[in-house]
């Protein structure tokens, strides 16, 4: 096969299920997470947080804390480097202001939410650090606060930050409204005029946390000559380096960031919270400083997803054809501006082929922690509302919800609701697979309901560097720069083995620190298997070309007369000469004598990730006495393009479904009248546990992505999109009442049941 071939191929290694390379370390406790790193002379860092939802900081007096024996440094926002102008930086969820990142790490003029960091100490022991925090006197002027997104849009609402609206926000709105978008095409009113029925509903969704098991943790060390090292749990060590270097007034080359093993991220570790603070403390104290967040701090001060208020209006003809769709999305971004609603407004109707569609979106400031990315940021909320109304229309006409979705499904050639015309996509095949699945036709018992939802996510690629080294013993090392949050070391190794024609067991992938490899974007956007895989394939092709050249020199023939096949260099035909194939191991063994070490590289920006669709089917039973919902059966069907390691793909599909189930049924940030978070812990913030759930069944479809040589599409984000509506549709059908508010916790479901009695 030619080195640049991209035609469909028969795979030998890709698609197999070898044991995960991180498994032994994780089950034996050897894996080093963020909090596991230590250094001689290390100090303990602790952060003082605002007890107020909104308060002006008149003064911070750190004198008494600094005088406490054992305290080595105290810092506030004034310790950050002066920023010359502002800068827009990529933080996973959106592009955001460097000043906002700084002011989120340590509040400057105002504390903007309960838990907002205002000062930090480094001390010899945790006890001294805690005592020092109590000695810091913060003079607050308490200000009125606003938590609810609709309330924050009203003209009389307390202003979280003034003067932050983008130019796209029309005049006359509350200063809390910072971003506006509109998408769509066609004549909306003409479309509604063709409808036999129009349903218009308003929905709300709560802010939910990513719920990763590992709290944020880091260790910072700054030497007297200005060099620094940072070890932290993150989804993107390069972004951490760039942001921290800017905030510290350092050159990026002088700060090395090493990503630890990561105990979950789901988008929530694409940002920095404690890392710049630890660096400040380390520089000021002259000693290494470790900061580990408590679970309460994680809830109060790291990003949950947006909470949302959404209006949807959809018209349908009697035969199930959707004639028009409209949605208005209001997303609370927390205390700093964001643009997440852009993604929600584009995704809302992406599953449908519509002649008339429009979505309007608004991002709004509230006195909550700044939202952070959470799998397919912005899409689950929007699609929940749309898929709920579609389901209600199906019920009203007595139509099969799958048939209606098939009738209206976006296909290749459909002008998408957000503008571009779709290339080859897998929605129709996914819906057909759902229709054929035994789950869809299985009988339901009394009091049970079945819900269905389609889902969509964009996926993207991004900047990627990969280095592939051919060792003299015939093994291969891959150096990549994206923390492994979803099995990327296995999938990258599989693709390298496939491309080189060697066994998977001869390949090992490791994650580089920022000084050992060129830039890599954050592990987000379902990009790693696609983009790092693409770079790995290209790096392997680079290495193959070099190995073919070495064989050609050994044989004394032209390089062009050698090809790579089945893990070996071979003459391309009888005219090239009669030489036995040289395997990778044989070429590697003599590499020092034939020109030196052999390696392949690729540094590029990957595009062409290919959008992804999924369909979820959910059966529930609702206890009409308590309002509790039990999930009886759950099936996920998704187009993976090509499943490189199917175990991990299934794991992503199951994990996304479970997180979505939690979002739909129980998870919620609950604030008191005082604007303080009341459930900052897993006892009161209820995530699903294994005993709450049935086996999540999965069906992987493989409709190749034309933008990847193996057809790979990202799979990590799409599976969290459909569960919200699948659950809501199932519960609504089970109780005979349309649910419009998430989470559907037992009191809310009971209220709906009682309203219908």
């Amino acid at each position: 096969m030619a080195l640049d071939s991209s035609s469909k191929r028969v795979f030998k290694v890709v698609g197999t299920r070898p044991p995960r390379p991180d498994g032994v370390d994780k089950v034996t406790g050897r894996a080093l997470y963020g909090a596991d790193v230590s250094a001689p002379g290390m100090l303990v860092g602790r952060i003082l947080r605002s007890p107020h939802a909104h308060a002006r900081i008149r003064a911070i007096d750190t004198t008494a804390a600094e005088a406490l024996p054992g305290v080595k440094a105290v810092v506030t926002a004034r310790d950050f480097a002066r920023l010359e102008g502002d800068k827009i930086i990529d933080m996973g969820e959106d592009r955001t202001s460097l000043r906002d990142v700084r002011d989120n790490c340590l509040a400057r003029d105002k504390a903007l939410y309960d838990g907002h960091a205002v000062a930090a100490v480094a001390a010899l022991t945790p006890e001294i650090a805690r005592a020092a925090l109590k000695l810091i006197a913060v003079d607050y002027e308490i200000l009125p606060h606003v938590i609810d997104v609709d309330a924050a849009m009203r003209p009389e609402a307390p202003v979280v930050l003034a003067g932050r609206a983008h130019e796209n926000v029309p005049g006359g709105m509350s200063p809390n409204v910072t971003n506006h978008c509109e998408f769509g095409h066609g004549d909306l009113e003409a479309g509604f005029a063709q409808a036999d029925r129009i349903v218009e509903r308003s929905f709300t969704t709560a802010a939910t946390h990513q719920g990763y098991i590992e709290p944020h943790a880091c260790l910072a060390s700054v030497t007297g000559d200005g060099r620094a090292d940072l070890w932290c749990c993150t989804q993107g060590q390069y972004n951490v380096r760039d942001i921290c270097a800017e905030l510290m007034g350092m050159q990026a080359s002088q700060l090395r960031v090493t990503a630890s093993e990561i105990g979950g991220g789901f988008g929530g570790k694409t940002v920095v919270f404690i890392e710049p603070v630890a660096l400040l403390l380390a520089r000021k104290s002259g000693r290494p400083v470790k900061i580990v967040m408590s679970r309460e701090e994680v809830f109060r001060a790291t990003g949950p997803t947006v909470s949302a208020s959404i209006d949807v209006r959809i018209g349908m003809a009697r035969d199930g054809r959707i004639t028009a769709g409209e949605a208005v999305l209001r997303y609370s971004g927390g205390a700093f501006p964001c643009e997440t609603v852009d993604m929600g407004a584009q995704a809302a109707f992406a599953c449908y082929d519509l002649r008339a569609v429009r979505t309007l979106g608004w991002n709004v400031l509230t006195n909550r922690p700044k939202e952070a990315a959470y799998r397919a940021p912005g899409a689950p909320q929007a699609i929940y509302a749309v898929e709920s109304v579609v389901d209600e229309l199906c019920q009203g006409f007595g139509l099969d919800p799958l048939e209606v979705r098939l009738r209206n499904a976006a296909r290749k050639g459909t002008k998408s609701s957000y503008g571009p015309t779709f290339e080859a996509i897998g929605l129709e095949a996914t819906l057909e697979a759902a229709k054929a699945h035994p789950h869809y036709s299985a009988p339901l018992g009394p009091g049970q309901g079945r819900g269905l939802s389609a889902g969509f996510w964009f996926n993207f690629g991004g900047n990627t560097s990969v280095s592939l080294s051919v060792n003299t013993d015939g093994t291969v090392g891959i150096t990549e720069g994206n923390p492994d949050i979803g099995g990327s070391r296995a999938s990258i190794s599989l693709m390298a083995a496939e491309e080189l024609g060697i066994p998977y067991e001869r390949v090992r992938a490791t994650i580089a620190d920022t000084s050992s490899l060129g830039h890599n974007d954050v592990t987000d956007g379902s990009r790693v298997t696609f983009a790092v895989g693409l770079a790995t394939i290209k790096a392997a092709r680079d290495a193959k070309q070099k190995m073919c050249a070495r064989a050609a020199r050994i044989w004394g023939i032209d390089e062009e007369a050698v090809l790579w096949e089945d893990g070996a260099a071979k003459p391309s035909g009888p005219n090239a000469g009669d030489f036995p194939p040289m395997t990778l191991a044989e070429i590697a063994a003599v590499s020092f004598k034939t020109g030196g070490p052999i390696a392949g590289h690729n540094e590029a920006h990957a595009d062409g990730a290919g959008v992804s669709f999924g369909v979820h089917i959910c059966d529930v039973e609702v206890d009409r006495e308590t309002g509790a919902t039990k999930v009886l059966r759950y099936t996920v069907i998704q187009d993976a393009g090509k499943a490189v390691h199917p175990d991990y793909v299934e794991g992503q599909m199951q994990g996304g479904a479970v997180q979505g189930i939690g979002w739909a049924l129980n998870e919620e940030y609950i604030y008191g009248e005082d604007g303080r978070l009341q459930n900052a812990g897993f006892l009161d913030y209820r995530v699903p546990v294994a005993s709450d759930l049935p086996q999540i069944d999965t069906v992987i479809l493989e409709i190749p992505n034309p933008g990847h040589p193996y057809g790979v599409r990202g799979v990590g984000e799409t599976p969290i999109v459909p569960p919200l509506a699948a659950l809501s549709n199932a519960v609504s059908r089970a109780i005979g009442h349309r649910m419009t508010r998430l989470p559907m916790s037992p009191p809310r479901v009971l209220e709906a049941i009682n309203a219908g009695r």
Partner: protein
Amino acid sequence: MVAVTLWGSLRRFTGGEGQVEVEARNFKELLDRLAETYPGLKPQIDRGVSLALDGRIYREAWFTEIGPDSEVVLMPYMTGG
């Protein structure tokens, strides 16, 4: 000339037009021409945009060539989790 489809909220910066034409051979030229011709679009372009070319979405690819009959759609900067 390349016909560029804009998302709805940008129409206020193009005199109400949802599709505009500019002379461009690649994405960089296209974004430069858009910002020159419609200065109201510049803040959004500076914050970051994506471009879809014949249905495929690109984030940062200045030198992607645009064919004479290509479908070009300006989109917000793609983000994810």
